[in-house]
C-alpha cells in the first residue's frame, strides 16, 4: 500500500499534535501545585460572612468624638440631643456639636445609663442604681438589688424604671423611688413567654414610641415586645449568620429605638450595626464588619490584643443620627444616612 502525500501530511499533523499534547500535560503536571483544591476542613473561617454588600450600607460616618475614657462602657442621648458617655468612673455630657458641657464624677464604674424625659440621669452600676439631676447632682443612690445582680440596661417611662439583670435573666420593674413593682420575662409556657436566655452579660432593653418595652432575648436572637405588666405581645428575629439575621451565642448585644419606631441593633462576634423596621423587617446596614476591622474586629487568636469580645453600644438622636460607641477606638462614631 502506498502512502499518499495527503495521508502522510495528516499522519504527521496528528503525531505532532499528540506529542505537543503530551508535552503540555507533562509540563502542567510538573509545574502545578499539588495541593488539593478542597478547603482545609480543620480551619475555622468566618471571613466570608463578614463581608457586607455595599448596596445594603445606607449610612456613612461623618465624625468621631473622643471619649477620653480608658474604658468607655455606654452612650445615651436625651430629648435635647445631648450626648452622655459613661466610662471609667464618670459621665461626660456633650452638646449635639460634640462640645463637652460637664462631667459627673462617680464612686464606681458605670455599666449602663439612660436619660429620663425629665432629664434625670439613671446610671447602672454593677448591682445598684444612682440617679443624678440634669445638673449632675446625686439625687438618690438605690440600695443594692442583690449580690448576684448584673445590671446591663435601664429604661425609664413615667414613674416606671425597667432594669435588665443579666445574671437573673429577668427584667425588674421598679418605680422611681426604688420600690420593686414586678418582674418581666420569667419563663411561662402557658402565657407563651419563653424566658430570657442570656449566655453572656449583654441584655439590653428600650422603650419604643408605642409605649411598649423592647427587650433583647440574646440567646434566642429575638427582640421581644412586652407590656409593663409582663405580657409578651410579639417577637421577631431570625437565627442566621446572614446579614438579615443574628448569629452567635448572644446577639444583638445592644439596641436603640428611633422616634418612628425603627430599631437599630448591634452585634458582637461579627461586629455590625443594622436597622430594622418597627415590625422587624431588615432595612439596611449602618456599619458592617469592615467598619470595625481595625477596632473590635473579628476574633483572631494570633492577635495578642484581640478585642473581639468587647461589644459596641449605640444611641440615636432626634435628627436620626446614630452614635456608635467603639470601646477599642474609645470614640463615639457618628453615622448619618447617605441620602
Amino acid at each position, binding site marked *: 500500500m502506498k502512502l499518499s502525500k495527503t495521508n502522510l501530511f495528516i499522519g504527521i499533523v496528528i503525531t505532532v499534535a499528540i506529542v505537543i499534547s503530551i508535552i503540555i500535560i507533562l509540563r502542567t503536571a510538573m509545574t502545578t501545585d499539588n495541593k488539593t483544591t478542597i478547603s482545609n*476542613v*480543620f*480551619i*475555622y473561617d*468566618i471571613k466570608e*460572612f463578614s463581608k457586607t454588600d455595599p448596596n445594603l450600607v445606607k449610612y456613612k460616618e461623618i465624625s468621631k468624638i473622643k471619649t477620653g475614657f480608658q474604658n468607655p462602657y455606654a452612650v445615651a442621648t436625651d430629648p435635647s440631643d445631648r450626648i452622655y458617655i459613661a466610662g471609667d468612673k464618670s459621665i461626660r455630657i456633650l452638646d449635639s456639636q460634640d462640645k463637652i458641657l460637664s462631667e459627673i464624677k462617680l464612686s464606681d464604674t458605670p455599666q449602663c445609663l439612660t436619660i429620663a424625659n425629665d432629664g434625670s440621669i439613671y446610671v447602672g452600676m454593677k448591682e445598684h442604681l444612682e440617679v443624678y439631676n440634669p445638673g449632675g447632682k446625686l439625687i438618690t443612690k438605690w440600695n443594692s438589688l442583690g449580690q448576684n445582680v448584673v445590671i446591663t440596661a435601664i429604661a425609664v417611662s413615667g414613674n416606671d424604671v425597667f432594669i435588665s439583670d443579666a445574671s437573673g435573666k429577668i427584667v425588674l420593674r421598679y418605680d422611681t423611688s426604688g420600690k420593686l413593682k414586678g418582674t418581666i420575662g420569667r419563663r411561662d409556657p402557658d402565657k407563651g413567654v*419563653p424566658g430570657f*436566655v442570656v*449566655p*453572656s452579660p449583654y441584655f439590653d432593653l428600650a422603650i419604643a414610641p408605642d409605649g411598649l418595652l423592647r427587650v433583647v432575648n440574646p*440567646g*434566642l*436572637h429575638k427582640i421581644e415586645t412586652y407590656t409593663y405588666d409582663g405580657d409578651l405581645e410579639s417577637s421577631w428575629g431570625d*437565627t*442566621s*449568620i*446572614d446579614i438579615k439575621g443574628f*448569629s*452567635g*451565642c*448572644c*446577639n444583638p448585644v445592644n439596641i436603640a429605638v428611633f422616634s418612628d419606631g425603627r430599631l437599630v441593633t448591634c452585634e*458582637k*462576634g461579627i461586629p455590625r450595626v443594622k436597622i430594622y423596621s418597627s415590625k422587624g423587617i431588615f432595612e439596611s446596614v449602618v456599619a458592617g464588619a469592615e467598619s470595625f476591622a481595625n477596632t473590635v474586629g*473579628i*476574633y483572631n*487568636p*494570633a492577635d495578642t490584643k484581640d478585642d*473581639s469580645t468587647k461589644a459596641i453600644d449605640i444611641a440615636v438622636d432626634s435628627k436620626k443620627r446614630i452614635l456608635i460607641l467603639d470601646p477599642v477606638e474609645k470614640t463615639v462614631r457618628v453615622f448619618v444616612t447617605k441620602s
Partner: protein
Amino acid sequence: MEEEKDKLSRRDFVRSSIRGACLLGLGGILGLFYNRARADDLVWQLDPYKCIQCGKCADNCVLEISAVKCVHNFSLCGYCRLCTGYFNPQPNALNTGAENQLCPLGAIKRNFVEDPYYEYTIDESLCIGCGKCVKGCYSFGNGSLFLQIRHDRCLNCNDCSIARGCPSNAFKRIPASQAYVFKGVEQKG
C-alpha cells in the same frame, strides 16, 4: 615533743578527709533521695490563654492520634441552642445533622437539657485536637471549649514535639499534681 604529738600526721589528715568526703556524699545522696521523694513530677500542659488554635497540636504529636484534646468547662458554657463551637457558621438547621456540625470528626455530642438549653460534651476517642471548635466557641461565645493535653495518653516526652512546634509558646511543664490548666479557674498555690 608535745608539739610533735599534737601535729596531725599526713596519714590521719587523708583518712579524716576521706571520712568527711564519704559523710558528705552520703548526706548528699540522702538529700537527693529526700528531694526526689518530695518533689512533684513535671508534665507538659497547654496554657489555654496562650493557645491560638493553629491546628498544629493535631499534627505534631508523636502519637498517631494527638494527646491534645478539646475539653469543656461547663461552668463557663452558656448551654446555647446555637453553639458556635458545635455548628458550622451557616447551618441548615440547628440539629445534629452531620452537615450542620463544625467538627469534621463529629467529636462533639449535643444533648438536650431543657428548652432552649443543650449540653455539649467531647468524645475524646474521636477528637484529634485541631481546635476548630475552640475557635468557633471563642469567636462568638464564652470560650468554654479549650485544648488540653490528656495525661491518660500523653507520653510526656522529654522533648515534646508539639511544644517545640507551638507558635505561641503555649506549652509549659507543670507539676503532675496540678496537671491541667482550666479556663475560668484561678490557679492557687
